[in-house]
């Protein structure tokens, strides 16, 4: 079952690393995993959320007055008591500095298409296009299909970023034909660890990757997020690379760890697991990971 109308929490234009060329990436809200290292903390909950960005706050106190349940308090450095907040959005409406923002907006398909198509020339000249990301966009297959169809008709390059947990038949039928590129995240080779850190087993991920490789091999791009201490371990990466080789995969992509999302989590009042490193990976660490995959003769994207 897929929900009909997702919320969108960001449309990033002039994106350069979500596929070839110059692109727009659309982030759908809602995810069926709970990765401990989720770099898009605002993407998990399918409901609208309120973010607080202290840098933009001018301490005017308007939000305190506006809040019907007294969840907003100036003394609170995080501004909102998440326990009390009903996400009514009243504070957002009055905030002059846009320090309080509502994350997650509904866009009718036409509305979204209009925004995407504004940058059409940049896609055309660069061989770029549109990437649907999340969250997990396959939770909203009908919506995805409705957006991707017209884009494909315009001859634009289309891509999706998925965690691989979707119903294969529905995906193959509705979405896959409309895609030029499927970036499918492979996080952990071990099923138990996968369950522990993301909340679900990984068997479906591998199965869907296999299906994809059979059905549309040119469109498949497995991606491995490198999370120090979790996925970026020698054992895990070697296991993944072996398995990819077995599946006949020729190329894959590595996503080096980047903790800049910590501030996003803070804005939403979400805890950050203490085991996560606050540092970027060193070029040496990244190179060591790459080495594992190039040894397995996988071309790294």
């Amino acid at each position, binding site marked *: 079952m897929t929900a009909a109308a997702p919320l969108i929490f960001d449309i990033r234009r002039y994106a350069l690393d979500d596929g070839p060329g110059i692109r727009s990436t659309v982030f759908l809200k809602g995810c069926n995993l709970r990765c401990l290292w989720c770099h898009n903390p605002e993407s998990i909950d399918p409901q609208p959320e309120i973010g607080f960005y202290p840098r933009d706050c001018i301490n005017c106190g308007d939000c305190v007055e506006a809040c019907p349940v007294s969840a907003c308090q100036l003394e609170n450095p995080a501004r909102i008591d998440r326990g009390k907040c009903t996400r009514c959005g009243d504070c957002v409406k009055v905030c*002059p500095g846009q320090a309080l923002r509502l994350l997650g907006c509904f866009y009718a398909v036409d509305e979204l298409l209009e925004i995407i198509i504004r940058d059409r020339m940049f896609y055309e000249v660069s061989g770029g296009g549109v990437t649907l990301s999340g969250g997990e966009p396959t939770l909203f297959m009908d919506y995805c299909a409705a957006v991707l169809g017209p884009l494909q008709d315009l001859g634009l390059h289309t891509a999706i970023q998925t965690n691989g947990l979707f119903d294969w038949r529905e995906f193959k039928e509705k979405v896959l034909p409309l895609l030029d590129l499927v970036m499918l995240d492979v996080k952990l080779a071990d099923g138990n660890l996968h369950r522990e850190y993301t909340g679900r087993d990984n068997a479906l991920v591998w199965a869907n990757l296999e299906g994809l490789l059979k059905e549309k091999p040119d469109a498949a791009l497995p991606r491995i997020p490198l999370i120090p201490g979790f996925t970026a371990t020698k054992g895990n990466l070697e296991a993944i690379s072996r398995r990819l080789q077995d599946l006949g995969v020729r190329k894959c992509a590595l996503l080096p760890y980047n903790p800049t999302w910590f501030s996003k989590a803070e804005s939403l009042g979400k805890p950050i697991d203490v085991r996560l490193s606050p540092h970027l990976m060193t070029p040496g660490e990244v190179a060591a990971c790459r080495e594992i995959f190039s040894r397995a003769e996988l071309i790294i994207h």
Partner: protein
Amino acid sequence: MSNVTFTVEELGLRDITLKNMPRLQRMRDRHFDGKPAICTELPRNITTFWKEKLAKLPDKDDSPELKAGKLYQYVMERKEAIIAQDNLLAGTTTTKPLGVLLYPDLYPLCIWPELETIGTRKKNPFDITPAQIKELNSVIFPYWLDKGTIMEATRKALKESDQECAALQERLVYYLVSKPECISHTIPHYGMVVKRGLADIIREARKEEDKPGKSKEQKDFYRAVQLALQGIITYAGHLADEADRQAGMAQNQERRDELQEISRICRKVPAAKPETFHEALQAIWICKIALHQENANLALSLGRLDQILYDLYAEDIKKGHLTPEKAVELVGCFWLGIADHVPMIPEAGEELFGGSGSNQAITLGGVDRDGKDAVNDLTYVMLKATELLVLRDPNVNARYYPDVNPPEYLQRLCEVNITTKATPCFHNDLAVIDTLKSQGVTEQDARDYGVIGCVEPFSAGRTFGHSGAILFNLTSALERTLFGGKHRLTKDELIGEQTTPAVQMNSFDEFQGALKRQLGWLIDRAVTFNNYCGRTHQQMHPCPMLSALMEGCMEKGQDVLMGGATYNFSGAAMIGLADVVDSVTAIQEFGFPHNGNAMAKMIAAIESDWGEGYRDLYAKVKNSSHKYGTDSPLAKDNAKWLMEFLHNTFQSKEHYRGGKYTVGYWTMTNHAGFGMLTGALPNGRRKGESFASGITPVSGSAPVLPACLNFIAGLDHTKITNGQALNLKFPPTATTTPALLSQTIQGYFLKADRSPGGLQVQFNIMNRQKLQEVTQDPGSPEYRDLLVRVSGYTAYFKDLNPQMQQEIINRAEYDLGTKQEIRYPYYERKEEPEPEPGLVARVVTGLGNIVRYVGNWFGELIHRTPAPIRDFLKMLEDKSTGDFLEGLLHFMEFRLEDPLHLDPEYHKNIAKFQGTYRFQDQKSNIETVVSFADGKMRINPDNPPPADLTVTFQDGDCLRNFLLPSPTPKRDFLKKDIMKSILNHEITVEGNLNLLYKFGYLANHLILHPLP
């Protein structure tokens, strides 16, 4: 058939480096080591000509044209023939390796007061010798003081009702008409030099002259052309002689051979038609030198050299006489020649135009007259020379025709942009050609456009575009609209149109109407003043050489100044577009909800310079999504009607040579300069901050790059008839590749329906941190050639004034890592930092400059005269201010009388000087007249003659502030106060400014030499 024979790998000519071009390396080093030096050859020759030669009958009664013909023949014949060390091209613009040209009838008198300090000033000093100071002070300047400069002649011509036109110019904040300083901003037809040679043009002129039915004016014109061109040929002969002389002394055979070749070439061209690439470059170079003796070295541009020279290049290559490498070397010599002089900029103007070279634009690529791809091998050779030398002059402009020019050409341009960090800039052929056609230019001529000065595209060699005629401060009209016809700087003064103050307005429509009225009035004043100046040019400064090399003049028998060129325009550059659009939008959004005090709050907020109490409104305004450069329909609409209004109004004006007024959006450094003088604006811009440059959005308010590009591409290009500068800054990271830049340009140049997108774009590839380092250590040799694009022209970053440097550092920077433009949050205004003295003085008219000097003199007198006199003067301070002023003047009188025979030279300054100054306050409590006549200075003489110059102070206090800023020995402090006085309108000056310059020299000399 394509004219590119290089393979794609070869386009970059990667084997050619400065290392294997030792000649260019040496010449480039010398160029950067050199300090500009004043050259007095040209003003000396011009002055001598007028004084001695032309004073004679019957020449005295010649028409202005004929006089000019004789003048330039004389000037060229007497020009010293110099061949710069190592150079393969003979001839220099001045007698110095890096010279400063002075044009005596234009604006040089404003450096009179600075003569003794210009060599040591902090920013961009010019070398000057004592002999030159003496010559300028005692011979050249006095002659032009009597004869009159363009500005003073124009002032005299103004009708009573138009007097305010000059006053507005001198208030500094409204508009600046550049004609008093220059006749330039155009592209001569160098094709004529290459395809015909000057002798042929002379022949044609003679034939035309002899044709029956020609009027006296026409005959005089043809005669003038012959004389002036003959002068150029004589000069070429002198260069050949000099080459022979040097060849005789040459140390090595190689140089001897080179010099002999130079000699051969200069005996042949530019008189005859050049037959090799080298000959053609030399011919153009000699003509270029000649044109700079006649026309100020401001934006006299080169046009499409890769087209004009291609045939000879290709022939030479085919015959094996030339290699691409040799061609790069020759082009390099030419580039360095172009950079061999800088414009004369007085200290005050330094802040406004500081760091500018002389803006000689060159245009590469694009399509030919038939619309076919015109990119050729020579295009790549010239790009290579640009990439190797990294010079601010010439200002390299590349044309790109989407789908016609090959993609690898665009990639190569982007690669050069990334290596040089700032050049070339990119013009969209599709949009430019369309725009030119809308101005009545034929399709073929439109395709043959070249870029003038900063970014202004006009059909090359047949347009007298004077594209830099008017710098127009849009925000000053916005100010007047907000405050009912007043400007905060000029306080209560009401010049011209009065409208309802914004606080009393009831609707946005009313506001819009008032803004249009204020703009319309100011446009009329600026244009009227420009027309007056243009007519003065016609009388005083005909240009036979430029006319000879301009299509149209020969057929019409008319000078370019009279409208001889095929196409005639004068261009205005709008300053502050994005700030005005954002301010208008903010007023629409926050000023006119139905409750009445919203506008009052907005006005109070800007009057408080967005103070603490208005942080909420500030936050709302700043965070509004309705900004110029975003997808906001509101902002788009406001930009649209504003630009349409400007276009229609300018185009509806009468033009003195029968052309049209065009409107462009580029600002050089004026967005920083005018910004300094402007208070807070409704868009959240704080007092004194720079405006957004050119057509670029305000920094921080257009965070989405493609939205910004779409916005600019969506503006109606046919309403942008005088060029635009869109400045973007990318960080030099791994993602900033030639491919990405070229894709970005392509996406911006073409709309989805294949209609034309944006006219122009330019990139600074610049690291914020690096720029900040330079501001800390400007003297470091490491940064001497760090090139940046200002708004159109390129400059060395270290030469720019601090405000301009800051503007470039803050400029919208698209961080491709986060896909976000850097934002600027509200900041607390710190204890207002006293503006850097030079900064305030960003003034072109010599006015500020000179009043400052007068003030310096009085102030310094107090501190530098011996103690007893100082005490005496201090005592006077307690007396009434008027007495005090007189006391000071008496001291000057004492020094001029010189009873102790301490400094007989000083007295010579007034030996033949006549002039009367009046110092007064508005209430006429103070009134002192100083009169110079018969070698005497008289204070308050009986029956004083009418004043030639009146300096008016608002009241006694202002005069006291002016004379006695505060007891500090630092001269900088004085400058600051005097400028403030002018800007606050505590002082106004009326009359012949040249007299003030003279007085300034007298005063400044006393400051520098308090005791002989």
